């Protein structure tokens, strides 16, 4: 029948045109005029140095993306480097920044550069008191929660925006930022599964403030790394590996971090066994409550039970949870020791540059005999 054929043809041509026009964004190839010396790199960033500038490459900035972006940082009083292509050219040191995550605040505090923050989006749950006060008073411009307040952002005219995207939708937002003339640099520290790699993004943040800051950041990281490895070595002295379970279910389903995640790595480095290390990748997995009962009933430790601040909170979620051995023995710990009055948790803010402290906490929990004098920093025993 005539109309049926023409309709099928119409659809195929629409589909085809759309799919065909899906060209992936190509980065322009650089003219190789500079010789670059590698400063540092992780799975998701790479800092190189040329005589006149630093080059930052961020790759795979969110799950499933193969994108790679380049940024050039050059001293403010020099000319903008020619002959190199980048998404943004940032004159350093920057005077005003827009941040979009509490980890950004954490990095800046570690560098003592939080005064550079001029505006913030989605930071209503920050921990730092003075930051919150400045946000409330308007000294730091509140740029919205879920969506950017575009007009205020434009009016602010910051030197750079710390942006991130966790998926394609958010990536579109980054595009929008660039259309508004913002220098949006993508930070992808959350993609790192290695605690040290995550901390190393301190160096990326330091780039915004110049060479000296970068050097100081590198030194800081070096110290952190040394302390971390020392802790790791210490943990190996333990005689047994306790079993550890994590999380609190929502409506009967446990969403747990996968075996290759940041959480899992820390636990392994603390010489304990993460019960679900075999399961899946980095992503969080939903587990049925029966499965959890089956495998975790005899776990030695129960970590990070959601927002629970007391054992009662856990019982309120589900009265059956007193069956867990860890619950009965009082070996339940949560990373919410440092909470602000408004509900902000410092773990999500400063822990990103303190992996050695997290590790120390964990070792003190799992193997108290190894660190008898350690005072827990992020973790508290839930009672």
């Amino acid at each position, binding site marked *: 029948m005539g109309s049926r054929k023409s309709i099928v043809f119409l659809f195929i041509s629409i589909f085809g045109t759309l799919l065909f026009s899906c060209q992936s964004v190509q980065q322009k190839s650089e003219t190789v005029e500079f010789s670059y010396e590698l400063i540092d790199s992780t799975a998701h960033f790479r800092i190189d140095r040329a005589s006149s500038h630093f080059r930052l490459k961020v790759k795979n900035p969110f799950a499933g993306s193969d994108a790679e972006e380049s940024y050039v940082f050059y001293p403010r009083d020099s000319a903008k480097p020619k002959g190199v292509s980048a998404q943004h050219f940032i004159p350093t040191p920057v005077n005003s920044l827009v941040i979009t995550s509490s980890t950004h605040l954490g990095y800046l505090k570690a560098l003592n550069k939080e005064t550079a923050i001029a505006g913030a989006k989605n930071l209503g749950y920050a921990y730092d008191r003075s930051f919150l006060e400045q946000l409330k008073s308007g000294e730091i411009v509140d740029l919205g929660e879920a969506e950017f307040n575009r007009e205020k952002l434009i009016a602010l005219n910051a030197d750079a925006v710390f942006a991130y995207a966790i998926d394609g939708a958010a990536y579109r937002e980054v595009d929008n930022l660039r259309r*508004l003339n913002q220098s949006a640099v993508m930070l992808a520290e959350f993609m790192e599964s290695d605690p040290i790699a995550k901390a190393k993004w301190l160096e990326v943040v330091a780039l915004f403030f110049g060479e000296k800051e970068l050097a100081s950041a590198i030194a800081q990281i070096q110290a952190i790394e040394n302390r971390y490895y020392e802790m790791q070595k210490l943990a190996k002295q333990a005689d047994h590996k306790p079993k550890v379970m994590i999380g609190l279910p929502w409506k009967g389903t446990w969403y747990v971090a996968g075996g290759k995640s940041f959480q899992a790595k820390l636990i392994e480095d603390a010489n304990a066994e993460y019960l679900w290390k075999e399961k899946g990748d980095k992503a969080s997995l939903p587990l049925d409550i029966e499965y959890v009962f089956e495998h975790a009933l005899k776990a030695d430790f129960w970590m990070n039970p959601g927002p629970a601040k007391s054992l009662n909170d856990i019982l309120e979620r589900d009265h059956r949870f007193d069956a867990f051995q860890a619950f009965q023995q009082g070996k339940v710990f949560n990373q919410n020791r440092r909470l602000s009055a408004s509900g902000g948790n410092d773990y999500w803010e400063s822990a990103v540059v303190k992996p050695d402290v997290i590790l120390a906490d964990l070792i003190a929990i799992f193997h108290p005999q190894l660190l008898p004098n350690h005072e827990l920093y992020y973790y508290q025993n839930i009672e």
Partner: protein
Amino acid sequence: MSGRRNTNALFLLLLLALPLLFALNLSVGSVDISITDLFLVLKGEATKSSHELIFFQSRLPKAFTALICGASLSVSGLLMQSLFRNPLAGPYILGISSGAGLGVALVVMGATIFGIGLSASFTIPLAAVLGALLILFILFLVSLRLKDVMTLLILGIMLGSIATAIVGIIQYFTTDFQLKSFLIWTLGSLEGLSYAELKLLAAINGLALIAAFLLNKPLNAFLLGEDYAKSMGIVVKSSRLFIILISGILAGLITAYCGPIGFVGIIVPHLCRLLFKSSNHRILIPAAVLMGAELLLLSDVLAQLPGNGVKLPINSVSSIIGIPIILWIIFKKRSISKSF
């Protein structure tokens, strides 16, 4: 004839209101820009460069989006109400927005599950369009074999439910962050369209609106039922297909770029019928274009009422405006089917 004069007068009123509301929309925002400053921006002598940027990169695209979106969704909803002779039908009744949502969900949340993740910025709209097209395609194939238009309606509703169910399953397996990202898409937003995207939208939807107007005869004929329509020379099967296609294009592309924006498509056709006291589509379609655009421009202005940079999601505002109107219609008429 007085009826004709009234209709003309009403159209004149609506035509005059449009540029006024457009201008109102342009003058409202979280950064205070006085009227004089706005004029300076238009003349090219902006006092601050941020004013120029705000006006041309934020407010103007948003206003155009509101205009196109309101017009498109209203006409799309009108087409659905007339085809199915159902006063509660709207642009999304056949599952178009659910299909779009499925496309977006796959891209936004599917990255971690399936490892797919395209990084171009047109990924989201493209995924939404493909999702909507898929639903349309299934409907088409089925409608060629169906005799009864009500069965088509039920099928559309079910397809929408299936798509929503699949989205639910995907949501089940994702992290909080991505969930929030998807939820934000479902709230709908008029912001963030580039001029290139606006041009595409204007071109395609503009053509679709003209096509809708050219469908006024079958649409009117369907008011009498399919038997009489056939006896008046309307080819029912292909008319149905075109009406569904045009309605789907109007709703699908908008949803791809702005997320699902509800209620406008359901209320505005009723408002037009009440205002013009007519069911003749030669009058209703242009009326819906004007009223839809104006309603959304107004909703956007009201969404910023809280002030201090707080902006309500457009979906909620259009619902809050819409629900009392619908209730008023129902109470006034006592039975909505009579006016319908």
